[in-house]
C-alpha cells in the first residue's frame, strides 16, 4: 500500500505537524522556522493537486498520451518566490524586534 501518493501525503503531514508545533512556541525564531516548514508543506500540497504522474511532459508533443499538469508547477514557483520574500521580511522584523524590545518573545514581553 506504499504508493507514491501515500509517501507524498505523509511528507506533507509531517511538515505541517512540525510547522504547527514550532509555530506554537513563544519565541520568534522557532515560529519563523515553523512558518517556513508550513509553506514547504503548502508548496508540496499545491504541487500534488495536479495529480502525481512520473516521467510525463507538461507540454503538448506528438505521440504522447499522458501529461503532467503544468499549472500547479507554475503556481508553486510563484508561491516559492513569494514565500521567500515574506520569510526574508519576517526574519528582518524579528531581528529588529529583538534589538528594539530586548526580547525575542512573540508578545514582546520578557518571561518564561
Amino acid at each position: 500500500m506504499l504508493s507514491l501518493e501515500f509517501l507524498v501525503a505523509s511528507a506533507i503531514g509531517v511538515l505541517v505537524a512540525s510547522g504547527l508545533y514550532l509555530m506554537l512556541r513563544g519565541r520568534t525564531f522557532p515560529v519563523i522556522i515553523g512558518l517556513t516548514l508550513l509553506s514547504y508543506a503548502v508548496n508540496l500540497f499545491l504541487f500534488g493537486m495536479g495529480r502525481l504522474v512520473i516521467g510525463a511532459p507538461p507540454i503538448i508533443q506528438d505521440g504522447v498520451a499522458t501529461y503532467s499538469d503544468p499549472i500547479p508547477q507554475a503556481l508553486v514557483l510563484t508561491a516559492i518566490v513569494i514565500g521567500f520574500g515574506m520569510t526574508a521580511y519576517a526574519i528582518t522584523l524579528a531581528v529588529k524586534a529583538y534589538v528594539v524590545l530586548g526580547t525575542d518573545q512573540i508578545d514582546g514581553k520578557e518571561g518564561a
Partner: protein
Amino acid sequence: MTDHFMVLPVLIPLISAMVCLLFGTRFRDVKRGIGIVALLSTIGVAGYMVSLAHTDQIVTYGLGNWPSPFGILFVLDRLSAAMVLLTSMLALFAFAYGITSVDEKSGYFHFIFLMQIAGVNGAFLTGDMFNLFVFFEILLLSAYVLVIYGGGPARIRTGIQFVLLNLVGSALFLIGVGIIYAVTGTLNMADMAVKAAQVSLEDAALLRAGGYLLILVFCIKSAMFPVYFWLPNSYAAASAPVAALFAIATKVGVYTVLRSTTLVFGNDRGLASNLMDDYLQPVALITLMLGTAGALGAHKLRTMNAYLVIASVGTILAGVGMYTAEAISGSLYYMMHSTFISAALFLVADMVLQQRGEKHLDSLAPGPAVREPLLIGMLFFICAIAIAGLPPVSGFIGKVMLLKASVSTPTTFEFWAIVLTTSFFTLIGLSRAGTMLFWKTDAPLDRNYTTVKFKALPVIGLLLCILTLTIYGGPISEYFDAAGQQIMNPNQYINAVLGEVKQ
C-alpha cells in the same frame, strides 16, 4: 483591444512607486508630487470605470491577450469599479495627510504607500483566484512595512504579530486554492463557478471544504469574529495616514467574502451552493456586538476607532449575509460611508494626540486641552455623528437601507435589535470620548506644539466625500441597487468572462 485602461489602476501606482524608489531617500518634494499626481490620475481612471460600469456592461481584459479561462483576467463590473474608486479616493486623502506629517521619518513612505494601492486595486479587479492571492501578497507585504512605519516598541510589537498571523493566513489561502483547483481544474473565478455547479457527489465535500478554507482567510482579512484579534492593537499603533489607509484593507476582505459567496458558492451552484447563507449573518452580528463592546471599553481614541472599524465590518457583512440584492446594495453604500469616516477619525485622533503632549496622547482620560479645540472639536463632532449613524449623514441612510432590506428576511428582529442597540452604544462611547477630550480638560500645555494648518484639508476632504454620499444619496444608491442585482445574478458575470458558449 482598446480596453488597456483596465490595468491602469494597478499600473499607475506601481510605476509611480518604482520611480519613487529610484529617488531613494532624497528629493522628497518630487516624490510627494509624483504620489499626488499618480493618485489623482488613478481617481480619474476609476471614475471612468464607474461611468462605464454604470451602463451595465461587464468589461473583461485578458492580460497578455490570453483567451479566458486560460489567462489572467481583469473583470470590471459595478462592484469592482466602485471599490477601485473608493480605494483611490481614500488613498489620496491618506497620502495627503502623510505628506503633512510622517513622511519625514523615512524616504520610502511614498514608495510603500503606492505599492499598497497597486495591490488593493489589483485585488478588486482580478477575476482569477491565484492572481487574487498574488495581489493579496503585494498589499500585505506593503502593509507589513506600513504597520511598523515610524518605528517604536509598540509598532514593532504589534507588527510582528500582524505579520505572523497574516503569513499563516496566506498559507491557508494557498491550501484552499489548491483544493478547489484539484476539484474544478480551473483558477478563473467565473469558470470555477461553472465547474462548481457540475461537481460530482464524491468531490462535493472536498470542494466545500476548500471554499470554507478560503472564506476563513477572507474573514481574517476582514476582521470577523473570531479572527479579528490582530486588528485593534496594530491599527491603534500604526501611524495616522497608515491607519486611515488600512480602513480599506478590511474592505478587501469584505469584497472577497462577497464575491466568493455570490459568484462561486452562491445560488444554483449545485452541491456547492449557498456556503455561507446560514453562518455569515450570525457571525457578523456577533462581530458587530463585540466591536461595539470593545469601542466602549477602549482607553484610547485610536483603539476605540479600531474597534469601530470591526463593528462597521460586522454591519456590512450582516447586510451581505442576507443575500438579497437590496441588502447588498445597502451594505455597499454603508461600506463607502464607513471607510471614509473611520479614516477621518483616525486622522482626527492623530491631531488630538499631537497637541496633548507625550504623556496623555489620545487617552480617554482627563488631561490637557488641545490647542485648537474649536477646529479639532468640530471635526471630531462631525465624525462622531456620522459614525453613530445619526441623521442627516450618510451613515443614517446606509443603516436605513439595511434595516429596510432586512424586513423581508427571517432574521428581521435580531438584525433590527442588534443594529439599533449597537448604534446607541456607539453614540454613548463617542459622546464620552468627546467629553473627555474636549470638555473635561486642564489648561493646555504651554510648549511648542504642532498646529493643524494643512492637516485639516485631508480630513475636510474625507468629510466632503461623506457629504457627497449624503447629498447624492439617490443616484448613488440607485447605482448600488443595480450592483446588488448584478451580484445576485452571477450568470451575467460568467457570460461576460466565458462567452455564451460555455453555459
